[in-house]
């Protein structure tokens, strides 16, 4: 990705000063690729805007620094795990792309998920919206999973350990662990198809 001009004190300048420019440039590249799939007309700008907004959230910022920046982390593990951090970045990027599309007022069909509330850029609203939409998307895609996957995930979501699920289903504990990961990855594949797969 090119490095567009950034005013003093802007995101890129800050990253340069912190020695984390290269990692965030690569992260922005990855996000730009995803923004394109989400339907952005200006993926690079959308990626940078998503990063900027993610930096406004202290937990997100701490987690991104920990997981993506090469320099050894001075503090311990962040509050957010990698899954939450990536899910957050996905949600914010989707939000930014929706804003962009809303501004551009595209005259073409948009995915159902992008057709809800208009954007409000305050951080709390953003957080609530990202969480709500994640819930809605996951819920809808979950309903389409095979019954076996739904049942094993339902038991897992009820707080059961693999051993308990294994006893309930009469299966080996390692088998249950495999089913859980397969079910989650299948769920992820369906989410990808629903939210970012329209250009695939």
């Amino acid at each position, binding site marked *: 990705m090119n490095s567009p001009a950034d005013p003093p004190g802007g995101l890129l300048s800050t990253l340069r000063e912190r020695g984390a420019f290269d*990692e965030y440039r*690569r*992260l922005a590249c*990855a996000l730009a690729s*995803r923004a394109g799939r989400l339907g952005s007309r200006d993926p690079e700008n959308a990626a940078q805007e998503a990063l900027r907004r993610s930096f406004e959230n202290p937990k997100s910022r701490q987690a991104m620094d*920990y*997981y*993506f920046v090469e320099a050894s*982390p001075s503090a311990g*593990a*962040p509050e957010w*795990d*990698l*899954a*939450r*951090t*990536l*899910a957050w*970045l*996905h*949600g914010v990027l989707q939000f930014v792309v929706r804003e962009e599309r809303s501004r551009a007022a595209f005259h073409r069909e948009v995915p159902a998920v992008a057709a809800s509330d208009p954007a409000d850029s305050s951080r709390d609203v953003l957080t609530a919206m990202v*969480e709500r939409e*994640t*819930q809605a*998307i*996951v*819920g*809808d*895609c*979950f*309903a389409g999973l095979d*019954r*076996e996957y*739904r*049942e094993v*995930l*339902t*038991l*897992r*979501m*009820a*707080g*059961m350990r693999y051993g*308990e699920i294994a*006893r*309930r*289903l*009469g299966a080996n504990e390692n088998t249950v*662990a*495999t089913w*859980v*990961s397969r079910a*989650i*990855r299948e*769920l*992820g594949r369906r*989410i*990808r198809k629903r*939210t*970012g797969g329209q250009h695939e």
Partner: protein
Amino acid sequence: MSEEKLDRFARGELSPMESRELARKSLDDPELFEKLTYTAVARTGLADRRRRKWPLAVALLAAAAVMILLLSPFALRQFRAARAPLVAISGPPVFLTGGADANPVFRGAELESRAPRSAGSVTALAGSAVSIDLGSLDGLAKGAELDVMRQGQAIGRIKLTTIFRDHARADAAAGLTVHLGDAIRVPRAMYLRAGLDQIAAFTARGDADGARHIAAQVAADGNLDIPATGYDDWNNLGGIAELGGDRVKAQSLYQKALLANPPQPARTVIESNLARVKAMK
């Protein structure tokens, strides 16, 4: 990147340092970044559901289970050794999602759906047309006839003409004078059907807490004697009875579910529910 590591990421078993290594690797591997992102969205969405608080009754059941485990490990070992297949004897009932041809969308699949109600009231009148605050969510169907109640007494019937999600319109029977605020009673079978549909819909969405909440509410409203349509209904009625504290009824309903020839793994779930109820003292 090994599948084993992706599996562990999906299950949330990577250490922070392992996650860091994986994240940094994904910066140079767009395909890996995609896989991680959508797996992360799936796992985070599921975890958010899991974080919801369990109802008090479920928490009490769990506490009781912990006490049993602490106080009688030997007895539990004996119990487990005697049974095949092994089953968990603690925890809440597990509901089933309904058959492949089930269609839970109409009544219960929306995120902010309310629980079904067994009674409502008249909200508007226009000649013989009556509007009520009950709808398909409560199990109502076009053409059904409902009792109109005043001061606890049935004064006549209305026939439903138009059904919406949470309200409906009806015609009052000839000679019946309906007042605003008159109570409307939903026939028990309709109400239970609505409850079962919502439980199946919540379960299909992976919202076990939501399903249990509906079941607990339906349980509080009394008898469960309706014609069930399959093993999933029998099982879910058993779960309702169990949450309502009627273990004998629950046991009987779970047994009916098993007699309805359920496929695996539904059979396993039902057997587990039955074993747990039998083990309760």
